[in-house]
């Protein structure tokens, strides 16, 4: 069953030097109890897309058009107050930097209690009790409620952030590079924690630039490039049978123990999104570009069941 349906969404930043088309016409659905990872390099719009779902695009950014349907309700046209009541309760979010995503002046327990006090209208004493339970659930001891964020390590803080996001067992957890600031060992334990919530029925929208990390636990992977969705499919389809030249390039740039000694890189740089290239946004860096690539945008086509790619190579009969 479909939980979240993002259709044709466009998110632009109206800066003084031009309109930055950070997310341009992206469609994506997330099913219930599914882990979907969005992979892409810095500035490809993956975080903007996540912020768009929770309506926290910072100005001068704006959702220009498109729809985000969550459990049958359109999030974007929803009343501000009504949407606020859904945040934290139906949709949880974990941010990238655990060092700054907690208020430095308030104890961990108070910040956790905030969720219960906001949504369940319980008093602080009861909320603090729930907060203790929750800390145990994410693998910290109960007495951590009395700690300030600076007394915790990065991994512990990220556990607290996850606890806050998952406090009311939302149907959807959005995680924006939750492990980027952590070392690999801690990263793995955090991923285990997120996976444990998935087993309890939560859907995960996982944003990362780490293809290997995405491949490890996701059900499906979406690859973004320069504000566009370029390829979407199950983990096996993306990793074993990548079709878009960008995805192929990404996979070739990952070192492989049994692979070739020389690691291939994608030449060039990602484009300036104020003036994106015409046609396919990847064509200036693409090794296989041909005639239609610079002229017209390739459509997103299904080349095998569940595997979508946006590239002229796979369009029958060309442009």
């Amino acid at each position, binding site marked *: 069953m479909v939980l979240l349906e993002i259709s044709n969404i466009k998110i632009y930043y109206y800066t003084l030097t031009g309109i930055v088309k950070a997310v341009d016409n992206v469609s994506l659905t997330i099913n219930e109890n599914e882990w979907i990872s969005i992979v892409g390099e810095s500035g490809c719009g993956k975080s903007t897309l996540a912020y768009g779902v*929770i309506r*926290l695009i*910072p100005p001068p950014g704006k959702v220009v058009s498109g729809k985000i349907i969550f459990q049958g309700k359109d999030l974007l046209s929803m009343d501000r107050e009504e949407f*606020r*009541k*859904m*945040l*934290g*309760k139906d949709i*949880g*979010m974990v*941010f*990238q*930097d655990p060092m*700054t*995503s*907690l*208020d*430095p*002046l*308030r104890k961990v327990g108070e910040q956790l209690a*905030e*969720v219960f006090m*906001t*949504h369940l209208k319980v008093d602080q004493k009861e909320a603090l009790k729930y907060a203790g339970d929750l800390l145990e659930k994410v693998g910290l001891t109960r007495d951590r409620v009395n700690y300030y964020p600076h007394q915790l390590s990065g991994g512990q803080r990220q556990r607290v*952030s996850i606890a*806050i*996001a998952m*406090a009311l067992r939302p149907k959807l957890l959005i995680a924006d590079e939750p492990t980027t600031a952590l070392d690999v060992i801690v990263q793995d334990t955090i991923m285990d924690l997120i996976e444990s919530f998935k087993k309890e029925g939560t859907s995960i929208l996982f944003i990362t630039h780490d293809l290997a990390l995405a491949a490890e636990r996701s059900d499906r992977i979406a690859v973004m490039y320069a504000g566009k969705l370029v390829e979407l499919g199950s983990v096996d389809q993306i990793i074993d049978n990548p079709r878009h030249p960008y995805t192929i390039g990404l996979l070739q740039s990952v070192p492989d123990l049994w692979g070739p000694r020389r690691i291939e890189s994608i030449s060039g740089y990602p484009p300036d999104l104020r003036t994106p290239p015409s046609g396919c946004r990847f064509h200036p860096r693409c090794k296989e570009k041909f005639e239609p690539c610079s002229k017209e945008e390739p459509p997103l086509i299904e080349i095998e069941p569940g595997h979508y790619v946006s590239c002229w190579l796979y369009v029958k009969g060309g442009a």
Partner: protein
Amino acid sequence: MIPKKLMNMLWSVIKTYLLTRAPGVWMLRVGVGIVLFFVFMALLAPWISPYDPTKRVADPFLPPSREYPMGTNRIGQDVLSRIIWGSRIVLYVVFLATALSMAIGIPLGLISGYYGGKLDRVLSMVMDSMYAFPALILAIAIAAVLGPSPSNTAIAIAFVYVPTYFRMIRGQTLSIKSSLYVDAARALGASDNTIMSKYILPNLAHTVLVVFTLSVTDAILTEAGLSYLGLSVTVPTPDWGYDLRAGQPFLLDGKWWLVFFPGLMVMLLAMGFALIGEALSERISLAQTR
């Protein structure tokens, strides 16, 4: 419960700021000492003042002596008693003024910075235009309209310092509002009021503290200035600024004590607050860059 919490807070403030070996802590100690000296002087005035400050107690123009340590004035009132009672007026006016300007400036700055938009532009414009007037001139104009009384003086001074608080708070709010933990608070469904009162306001405390001590210093001088010009108290009430003016015509006759002591008090009190403000802003900016 609450008094205990407050005591703990007070103690931790004393511990972190006064009982350290941090460089510059002497400034804070001296400043706090001076301010406490005047606060106790004001509180204990009825007991420590040797004479009634409004009554004639001796011949006029007696120079300082054992009996009248700061001499007597033109009417034969004891200068020391007038100075002790005068500290009440100064502290009352100055604290009322800063409390008022905080009560207006902080919420307005917070709302303006948080919501932004048209409201922010209008408020900023109003505050900037108030800022454009020289402080003393503006205070004189307001005090003249309201009439002479310590409370009105406080209102006049408060009016002058509202923009100072507004600007600082607005600027800080703008920077805190874009921090990740505020986003995180939004993402868990916190309302605007919760975010402002629980997430932004506590993080503004150190800014408020520094602006407070610096604006108090200014307010003391402004109060003295206003009462020097006769815009603060009515005649028999003891007040440093007023006494300064009353003694000034006799300065050239060699009656220095009429001017010297009130002037010294104004200077000392202002210096006390200035030292606290200076030390705190140094400590806090140190703490932030560390």
